Structures are given as C-alpha cells and as structure tokens.
C-alpha cells in the first residue's frame, strides 16, 4: 500500500499505458489549423495597431497642429477664413489618404497642407 502522500509509481505507469495517446504531431496540426481558422493569431492587438500608426500619425498630427497655429496667426493679417483649411484637408488627395487602410503618408498630407497656403 502506497502512502497517500507519495506517488504510486506502479499504478501511474499502468494508467499511463491505459491512457496512452499517439500521433502528437497530428494533434498539434489540428490544433494549430483550428487556431488559424478562427483567426486567433491573425487579428492584430489594439496596441499593435497603435504602434503601427504611431510614427506617421504623430508626424501628421504635428504638421496639422503647426498649420493650424500658422493659419490662426495669419488669419488676422490676411483675413483668410479658417474654412479654407478644412477645404484643403477635404481635397481629393487628402480624401484618398484618409480612405486608405494604411496610415496616412506624411509627405502627401504636407503637400496638401502647403497647397493651402
């Protein structure tokens, strides 16, 4: 009789034989295939998306902020209405950039922005 606090090596070995499984590789393949099928590895995490967008996003945001400030300061001198900035940003190029799934291209956005001035 084995003490309850110790492993029963003999019983354990016999049970292991009784419960023997085979073809670990096939099992692995079916699990991985099922995980892929459910897209458990494909969907990017929120942080991945934010990271992907971070650099160009920051560049665009900084540019927009500078332009906004510049336009605001220049408004008094030229009486240029703020609406023109919105018009510029809603131009065909800007609209195309915003419709793309990829992050906006800072160069294109800068070109649009400078075209306003």
């Amino acid at each position, binding site marked *: 009789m*084995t003490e309850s606090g110790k492993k029963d090596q003999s019983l354990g070995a016999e049970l*292991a034989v*009784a419960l023997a*499984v085979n073809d*670990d590789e096939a099992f692995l393949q079916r*699990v991985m295939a099922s*995980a892929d099928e459910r897209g458990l*590895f494909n969907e990017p995490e929120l942080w991945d998306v934010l990271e992907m967008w971070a650099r160009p996003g920051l560049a665009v945001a900084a540019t927009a902020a500078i332009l906004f400030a510049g336009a605001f300061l220049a408004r008094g001198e030229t009486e240029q209405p703020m609406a023109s900035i919105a018009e510029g940003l809603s131009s065909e190029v800007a609209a195309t950039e915003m419709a793309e799934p990829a992050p906006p291209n800072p160069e294109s956005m800068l070109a649009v922005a400078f075209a306003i001035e």
Partner: protein
Amino acid sequence: MDAKLAQKVQQGNREAFAQLVLKHGAAARRVCKTILDNDQDADDAAQDGFLAALTKIGTYDPERPFGPWLMRVVVNAARDLARRRKVRIVEEISTDTASEVPGPEVETHRAVLGEALNNALKQLPDREATAVVLYDVEGYSHREVANILEIPTGTARSDVHKARRKLREIMHAWQEN
C-alpha cells in the same frame, strides 16, 4: 520555460503556442480521455482546451506555473463536452423510443491490462478518476490537483486515495474473473 513561452504567446507568437501544445498535448489528451468516453471526444476536448487557453492567455500570470493553469482550462473544456454529450444522449433516447432496443453488448475478454484499467477508470466518479490521473500519471501535487479541479486540497488528497483503492478493487475482481 513554459512561462516564457506563454509570455510570447501573449504577444501573439504562433510558434511559442505550437511548442506549448507539443509539450502539454499528450497530458491534456490523457486527462480528457479520463473524463470522456472515447478518444475522439477526448481529442476534441483537448483541442477546445488549448484554444480556450489561447483565447484567455492574457489572464495567465507568468509568475505562476503554467501546467496547472492550462490543465484547469483543459479539464473544464472536457467537462463541458461531457455535459453536452450526456444531454445529446438523453435527447436521443427520449425522442427515439420507437426504435428497437439494442441487444445486450457482447462482452469481449480484455487481454490487455491497459484496456482493463481504462475500463476501471470509467467506473470511478469523474473527479476521482481525474484526480488520480493528475496525481499519479501527470505528477501534479495534491495542491495543484486541488487547484486544477477547483476543490480543497484535502478533498483532492481524499479523491486520489479513494480512486486508488477502487481501482485496485476493480482490477482485483477483473483478474479473478
């Protein structure tokens, strides 16, 4: 090692997950086989368990051992499938009363000790069978078995003891016949 792999899985690393499946797959399948009636269901449950673990890998604490955490998820997946199977069987019986009652199954003599032992395991309550397999086959401690089965440590210890005694009795009777 497992914790590092799990952390990689948390970051979306597919290869790390594959390594964990390869390492723990056999144990998971053995435990599921203890809870379910056939190999196919056991593999289905083990697969469900791994996918559930992958889905909730963010809740795993790398400071704690990975094996018991995974096995807890796997055992729950096996129990879920066992419940669904039982419901299905009951429904089939209750809605199919017009069919002929199948004749008594012909008992074949089991020459292999493993088969007899497997059969003996099926006669044990689910929790006792799982406890003894986790303890004596998979090498978990009483505390870990308790954690996996979500029962007190004393109950896990008692389940292992009772399961061993019943298995010996069943096997003894089988050998005499």
